[in-house]
């Protein structure tokens, strides 16, 4: 089953006037059928570009792509858009962040859902609209018949996101790429949408890649998490395992910097000093080293490979992971200095 989606050494670079931006720089992972992978990272970590690279939805001009992406055993990296059209919608579907700008403002909701059915599956129009109505019911939009004839601006933000999910589900894809699907929504609506995604994924035995900046979102809704930093995956593990045992200092620091509800107010937050690396000229060695509390000389010169943590499926890229003697010593030294 592991040959559902296999991403090996994929990179995506963009030509800009400043030079080549190495937005995604050597990413490898596999995804099984029916599982959810969360990709977490801050802005500029390359998580969105990675999802678009897998989908093949990047502009061709000024883009340098490499590595292999095998979907159900077939190489899809580097395919022309005309070949990708057999996959788009039918095999892979995508959900975007902003439900307002992602729906065509001039087309009725019903037609936007029915469109892929008519043109990808050659369904007659009335049958496609009937299916669209069923899809609206599936994503829990009340008064679905009325909605078919409405335009996007007549719906609330949450409703629009449900419509976008319905569009994604229309042709029965096996892989759903959700790029920050709840970032533009309020928390109460976010919870509804995340529940809906989980339920639909289970009902339809789909795999999902959930891209987000929010560790809280991935914690409850994924099987596995990949943490990205500076265009690379720096740690990847089954969700439970990752939160129990974070090995990459970046992952740990990211979690620590989030204010927690269960801590008393005015708890001092742990911060990550500095800024994310410039991907035109990334630092040598480990890209997190300049901001890492435990960075040693080796970290600045030698790039750590993804190594296994012992527990199944858990890999990390660090010379001195959290808990290692060197790490512990460095942290203690730092704590003394600040006091």
């Amino acid at each position, binding site marked *: 089953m592991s040959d559902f989606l296999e991403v090996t050494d994929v990179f995506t670079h963009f030509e800009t*006037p*400043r*030079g*080549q931006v190495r937005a995604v720089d050597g990413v490898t992972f596999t995804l099984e059928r029916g599982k959810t992978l969360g990709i977490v990272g801050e802005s500029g970590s390359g998580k969105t570009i990675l999802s678009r690279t897998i989908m093949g939805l990047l502009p061709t001009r000024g883009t340098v792509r490499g590595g292999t992406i095998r979907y159900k055993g077939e190489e899809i990296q580097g395919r022309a858009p005309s070949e990708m059209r057999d996959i788009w919608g039918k095999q892979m579907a995508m959900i975007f962040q902003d439900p307002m700008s992602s729906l065509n403002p001039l087309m009725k909701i019903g037609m936007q859902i029915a469109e892929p059915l008519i043109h990808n599956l050659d369904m007659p129009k009335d049958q496609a609209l009937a299916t669209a109505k069923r899809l609206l019911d599936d994503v829990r939009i009340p008064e679905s018949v009325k909605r078919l004839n409405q335009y996007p601006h007549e719906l609330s933000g949450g409703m629009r996101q449900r419509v976008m999910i319905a569009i994604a589900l229309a042709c029965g894809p096996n892989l759903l790429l959700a790029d920050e699907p709840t970032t533009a929504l309020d928390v109460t609506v976010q919870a509804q949408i995340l529940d809906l995604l989980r339920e639909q994924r289970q009902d339809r035995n789909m795999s999902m890649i959930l891209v987000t900046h929010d560790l809280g979102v991935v914690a409850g809704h994924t099987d596995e998490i990949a943490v990205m930093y500076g265009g690379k995956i720096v740690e990847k593990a089954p969700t439970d395992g990752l939160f129990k045992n974070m090995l990459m200092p970046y992952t740990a620091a990211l979690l620590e910097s989030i204010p927690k509800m269960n801590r008393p107010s005015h708890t001092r937050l742990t911060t990550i000093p500095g800024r994310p690396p410039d991907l*035109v*000229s990334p630092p040598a060695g480990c890209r997190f080293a300049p901001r890492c509390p435990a960075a040693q000389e080796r970290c600045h010169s030698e790039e750590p490979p993804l190594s296994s943590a012992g527990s199944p499926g858990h890999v990390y890229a660090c010379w001195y992971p959290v808990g290692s003697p060197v790490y512990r010593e460095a942290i203690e030294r730092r704590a003394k200095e600040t006091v």
Partner: protein
Amino acid sequence: MSAITKKRDWPTVLAAAWLIGLTILAFTADYLPFIRGYAESSPEGIGFSKGPFTSFLLGSDQLGRDVFARCIYGAQISLRIALFSIIIGTVVGGTLGMVAGFFGKASDRAISAFTDVMLAFPPIVIAILVTGRFDALRKNSEAFSWLSRTWSITFVLSILAIAPLARIVRAQTLSISQREFVLAARSLGARNGRVLVREILPNLVPAMVSVIFTGVAVLLIAEGGLAFLGYSIELPTPTWGRLIAENRNFIREAWWGTIMPCVMLFATVLSFNVLGDRIARRFDIREAAL
């Protein structure tokens, strides 16, 4: 490869060079021996027209006058009228637009109604009408004897420039006013005048400059049209439009008399448009329809 290679932007360089050169020539024409005097009479006599690149750079017309010299004098008049008009238009239109966009409410409604009405008039139609009526006014009333064609055309073109400028500035001001730094300035206790001058005006400048350049181009076109229809300034001073109109009847015999001022007008309008366009692109201003 990371070094930013700056390609020279030739259209901009050429446009700027053309405009600077033309302006210098036009406004120093009276002091230049190879232009001065050639515009009115010809050393070679009346009724003798010569082609370009002979003893005349751009040829001579039916009356033996040097086309190049006349084009340069034409440039002086055309440019002066267009520049005067755009300055008046910008000051009045810009102020109205800023007031409407910044203060809103009644002032906005009044000014918007005003621009709506102004924009209802087809510009050339209203221009010939007003110029024609000013002619009558000058003839019939002693008090308006000063109202020469130069004045009335400048006046008319200024009026025509006000409404589009006011509209653009209003829209820009409105969008800048909604930015949070304007709110921040107010929360610091800045007066309206200070907010307008310090916070809003500097952000208006790129759009204004761009619009001024394209505006001059539009006014040059309008002036050409007016002159062609017979509403140019009094003889003997020619404007480009007048040169085109009066030599057009001899186009079969001496095409240069008409084509050369056409080329001048076109090159100048193009140059202003190029500069306006570059500024708009540089500051990412959406193409505003003037």
